[in-house]
């Protein structure tokens, strides 16, 4: 019998898992697209550089122009790498939230988790302006977890109505958002660019320092999400079925929620609120490879990367030399998509 899915690993080896047949193809395709978009994005700017020279400069080869290395490697590359990273992190946390809540509308920004992370980070910045980039994600994580807990307390009624969760989440987001604006406005954050980041979501002016703050979190929590994928699969079938299959529901839920919150916290620290990526990317990924999470998680991650890199590229080129923050671009694309999801789920 032809296997319906790809099985990786044998029983003798310690690692074995199954994947939908579509997964490897889409992963390759999306990775290729993200690479092309990244190279284009690095080349575009006030000082255009050809794609070939971008690749040469990244690899440390001579391009015949001594400025290229500085422009590409110091100024533009970290920005694109951060865009790739936050796209992946937001998408993965969106997949986790939608799987856990069995709610197609759940996502970091609609449940108030992103807003909670932003507020906590801003509070830390205002309280101690010298706070290092390393400390910020921890504050953001605390804020994200508190916000997630609040939404859960306020919206949980035993049944899970998709719309109630989102209404509570959006309400919480606007309250927390207002507090954040107040903090930014009166908090004397000297660095205007940094303040702007909290308000709109942008990768403007990201340096290697920002990337270094992001990488450890991604290195821990993206693999964690993959390891937890099979638990997310059974939780996605509903609490009773999951328990019947032997899932330790509270523990797995807690670990998954922590993973999602940590990924959001890391992105918020570096790039503020880049909305709707965590909502859209999971839907695209499920459309491409079906709902099993071992396939959805990496597919959504690459989809998210591609979306944010493209959004940043668009934001810089559409009205050049004026730059639109990538968070605005994703919101312009994401809001109609959200409307469409609301429409599709109107009967629940």
């Amino acid at each position, binding site marked *: 019998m032809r296997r319906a899915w790809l099985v990786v690993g044998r029983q003798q080896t310690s*690692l074995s898992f199954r994947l939908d047949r579509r997964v490897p193809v889409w992963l390759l395709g999306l990775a290729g697209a993200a690479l092309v978009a990244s190279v284009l994005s690095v080349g575009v700017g006030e000082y255009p550089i050809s794609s070939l020279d971008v690749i040469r400069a990244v690899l440390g080869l001579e391009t015949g122009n001594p400025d290229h290395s500085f422009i590409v490697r110091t100024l533009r590359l970290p920005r694109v790498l951060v865009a790739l990273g936050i796209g992946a992190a937001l998408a993965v946390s969106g997949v986790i939230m939608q799987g856990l809540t*069995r*709610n197609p509308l759940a996502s970091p920004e609609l449940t108030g988790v992103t807003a909670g992370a932003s507020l906590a980070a801003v509070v830390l910045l205002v309280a101690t302006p010298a706070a290092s980039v390393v400390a910020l994600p921890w504050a953001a994580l605390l804020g994200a977890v508190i916000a997630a807990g609040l939404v859960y307390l306020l919206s949980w009624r035993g049944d899970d109505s998709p719309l109630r969760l989102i209404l509570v989440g959006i309400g919480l987001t606007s309250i927390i958002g207002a507090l954040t604006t107040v903090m930014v406005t009166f908090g004397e954050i000297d660095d205007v660019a940094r303040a702007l980041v909290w308000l709109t979501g942008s990768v403007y002016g990201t340096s290697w320092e920002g990337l270094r703050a992001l990488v450890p979190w991604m290195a821990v929590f993206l693999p964690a999400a993959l*390891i937890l994928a*099979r638990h997310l699969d059974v939780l996605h079938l*509903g609490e*009773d079925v999951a*328990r019947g299959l*032997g899932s330790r529901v509270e523990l797995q839920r807690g670990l998954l929620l922590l993973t999602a919150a940590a990924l959001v916290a890391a992105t918020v620290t570096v790039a503020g609120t880049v909305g709707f990526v965590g909502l859209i990317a999971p839907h695209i990924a499920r459309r491409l490879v079906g709902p099993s999470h071992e396939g959805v998680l990496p597919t959504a991650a690459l989809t998210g990367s591609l979306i944010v890199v493209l959004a940043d590229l668009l934001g810089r080129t559409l009205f050049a030399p004026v730059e639109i923050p990538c968070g605005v671009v994703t919101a312009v694309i994401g809001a109609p998509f959200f409307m469409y999801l609301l429409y599709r789920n109107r009967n629940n």
Partner: protein
Amino acid sequence: MGEICTERLTLAYDERAVVAGLDIVIPTGRVTALVGPNGCGKSTLLRGLARLLKPRGGSAYLDGRSIWRMPTRELARQLGILPQAPVAPEGLTVRDLVAQGRYPYHGWLNRWSEADEEAVARALDITGMVDLAHRPVDALSGGQRQRAWIAMALAQETKVLLLDEPTTYLDMHHQLEVLHLLRRLNREEGRTVVLVVHNLNHAARYSDHVVALSDGKVVAAGTPQEVVTSEVLREVFGVEAHILSDPDTGVPLCIPYALCENSNVRAPSMDSFAAPHTGHIHV
């Protein structure tokens, strides 16, 4: 193996006890039918036996061990449950759903084996779902969907199988098909099967043991002949019925013909309509 019993089991939601101090024994290697009116606590009891609901008092035992003392994974390899009306995520195919039944056999890294592959193939085959294996569960008819979920529970390969109304939504043909299937699993593989059914004639014909519940209490338990009687029907369901004997097998057949004059079966009150059922998500 696969013996289930309870000792002074008390199950409650919020304040109200649905099942209080219940002692029952489920015969090992037999098919047991749980019957009783809506809201009498059948699902609650099943959830208590499968550790989906933490008891307020007492405990349920599997082979003499309290199910609350067993590691979750070990219990899930021995006892499977199909809750009432589960809902599959959008787009999940039958094969992917059935594969989830293998969850208790997997570890951190070992997530798929030949044994898993075979169990899934067998479950699809037994339930007649091979041809529908690639279809999304949410695009199936109610009966096909029910069989997909049963296949998932079968892939779990447990010696005890608890099923909450596995024949609801099915037409006459598919109801019998599911009941035959459960009896075959019992006769050929010796599995202990407990199912909730509303059709008493089905309960009588396909089970070895019938437990009639009313208001969380056991009113009668025993062979179909002992339980399906006009007295029990009057007390449990508040109906008057003729009891005949099946000419081929001798199992009782009941034909209800009237409501009792002063039945002690509560009419459903408004609050039982409003009470939310957990675990069903409509996406």
